[in-house]
């Protein structure tokens, strides 16, 4: 469903993403892992059309994504790392606005808003100003905004940063439900257990390059266990990317 082909992006002398390729199929979640500054967010931004790659291409359903107004962008839903919401507005008004950007119209728009608010458990707060929400509620609404236009591919950039375990668990349940519906999910995070729990395949990026693209089991096989114990994903990650700090 999503195919990333040899993407490259530089900022001056800095090579942010270099020759990155991977695939994401329907009903699949790919975990995109990497240390800080590895190029995860730049990769996601290029897929979402926020950043123009210097080279390479993004294919949606086999068709190259081109230009700001490419209708294929409707098949992508972005859940950015920032809480990209208007605090002054209520969830309904936020979602009405974001839905209108995808040409959603009444009454389908209101019906869809109701569905996504139910999914993320915010139906009862649909008319409250977002500025009064907790971090977890905002994260769930952030997810709802990305889902509103019913995209086939969901790009999730660290969607659980700073949320309490309850909201985090609720988000996982939402994502698992979406996966079960056949959505393709690309998930970037620093939390290894999230990827272990949900990802079907894991792509590890470091210094802008893909250094591993495998299943969880495949990654485990790359690092020898200790005393017959299977190594943790974190141990695998540190083995692949090294232990030097990446501030």
């Amino acid at each position, binding site marked *: 469903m999503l195919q990333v082909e040899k993407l490259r992006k530089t900022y001056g002398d800095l090579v942010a993403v270099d020759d990155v390729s991977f695939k994401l199929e329907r009903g699949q979640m790919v975990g995109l892992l990497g240390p800080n500054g590895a190029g995860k967010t730049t990769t996601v931004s290029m897929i979402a059309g*926020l950043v123009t790659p210097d080279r390479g291409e993004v294919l949606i359903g086999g068709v190259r994504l081109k230009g*700001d107004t490419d209708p294929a962008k*409707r098949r992508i839903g972005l859940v950015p790392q*920032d809480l990209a919401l208007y605090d002054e507005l209520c969830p309904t008004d936020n979602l009405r606005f974001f839905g*209108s*950007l995808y040409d959603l119209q009444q009454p389908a728009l209101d019906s869809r808003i109701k569905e996504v608010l139910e999914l993320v458990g915010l139906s009862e707060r649909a008319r409250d100003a977002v500025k009064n929400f907790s971090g977890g509620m905002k994260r769930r609404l952030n997810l709802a905004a990305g889902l509103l236009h019913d995209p086939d591919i969901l790009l999730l950039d660290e969607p659980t940063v700073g949320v309490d375990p309850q909201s985090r668990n609720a988000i996982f349940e939402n994502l698992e439900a979406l996966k079960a519906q056949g959505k393709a999910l690309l998930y970037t995070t620093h939390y290894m257990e999230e990827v272990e729990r949900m990802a079907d395949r894991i792509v590890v990026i470091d210094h802008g390059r893909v250094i591993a693209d495998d299943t969880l089991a495949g990654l485990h096989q790359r690092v020898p266990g200790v005393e017959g114990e299977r190594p943790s994903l974190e141990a695998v990650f540190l083995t692949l990317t090294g232990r030097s700090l990446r501030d």
Partner: protein
Amino acid sequence: MLIPLRAMIRKDLQIFFSDRRSVIMSFIAPIAIASFFGAIFTSSGSSAPSRVAVMIADQDNGAIARSIIASIKADSALAVSVVSADSARSAVQNGKTSVAVVLPPGFGDAAGIAFITGSHKPELQLFYDPSHSAELGMVRGMLMGHVIDAVDREMFSGAQGRVLAARVLATFDSAGMPPAQQERFRAMLDAAQNLYGGPAQSGAAPVGLSTPYTVKETAATSDANVAYNGYAHAFAGMGVQFLLFAAIDLGVGILFERQRGLWKRLRSAPISRTLLLGGKAASGTLITLMTLLVSFAFAIVVFKVRIHGSVAGFLAVSVATALMASTFGLLVASLGKTPSATRGVAILAVLLMVMLGGAWVPSFIFPAWLQKVTVVVPARWAVDGLDAMTWRGLPFNAAVVPTLVLLGFALLFGVLALSRFQWEEA
């Protein structure tokens, strides 16, 4: 395309109206400051221009000095009070009056004699406030007319004039003037005394040589019966200023949206860059236009400001100004990096723009070179256009050029914003 555009406008209006305190300030601030400036530039609601306060100290007390003071007092452009010389100087020094005139002892007689002989001219002492030097020039010019009128009137028809003339005639011999010239002078003075010195008709003012014209002052407003209303210019100037401040809010708001990651969401939607900035420009135009129109509505109701020119022209200039301001806001967003740093620089730019645009004081009082230079300042066209449609009472034609120029600025700002905008959202 219309659905996202409408949604962007509706959302920005919702956000604008969601902060009631900010909304009230958006409307109250321009009204309050424009009212203050209007009060300064309006002469108590009367059509007469404000009078310059002048203090006069009469140390002479002669007929000519009294005549000079009477003449000055009758001048509608001056508000005269007669005080002592010390009080006059002290009042100027303390800033209570701008100019003071001291008629020294013997001034009138010396002036009368100097009027004929051209020598030994007496000195008139003027004290002036150096921060009001323009008023010094004005008073000096008026004073000259009043002194000449009073002296020649007295010399040719007054009792004191006859005494002085006789004294002058008596000095000719001792002055060594050639006999032929003495004769011609004596003949002229005798003729003047004979002409004007006969028994005065009852109630007739003494006559003599005088300034050969009078002045009829008419304020060139929209109609002879329409007084200049200083609030009209003040509301135009302050309206444009606060409209540009609202534009800064628009630009800084975009930068805040970027900081909050909202532009990632906007850019990930399948809509064009032109539409994204066009939506912002449209909502910005509506909000700034509303600010301007509410201010003028207040001025119309409270200060009786009227659109004496074309209403359509007024609306055209207003819309073009609002569009120019909102695209200026986009330019601010496209050139700015962080919201706080951008706000500071943008406020400075706007203050310069409105100052040079004549929003604080009318541009016609600028030096000629500055008036020429400021045609590149959009605020100048906005203020001049609104002035033309309000107190100047000019027809629609007078709104066309300002409107087109403002639309040109809007286009320029919009194109620059589109090309310089940071579109990549990494």
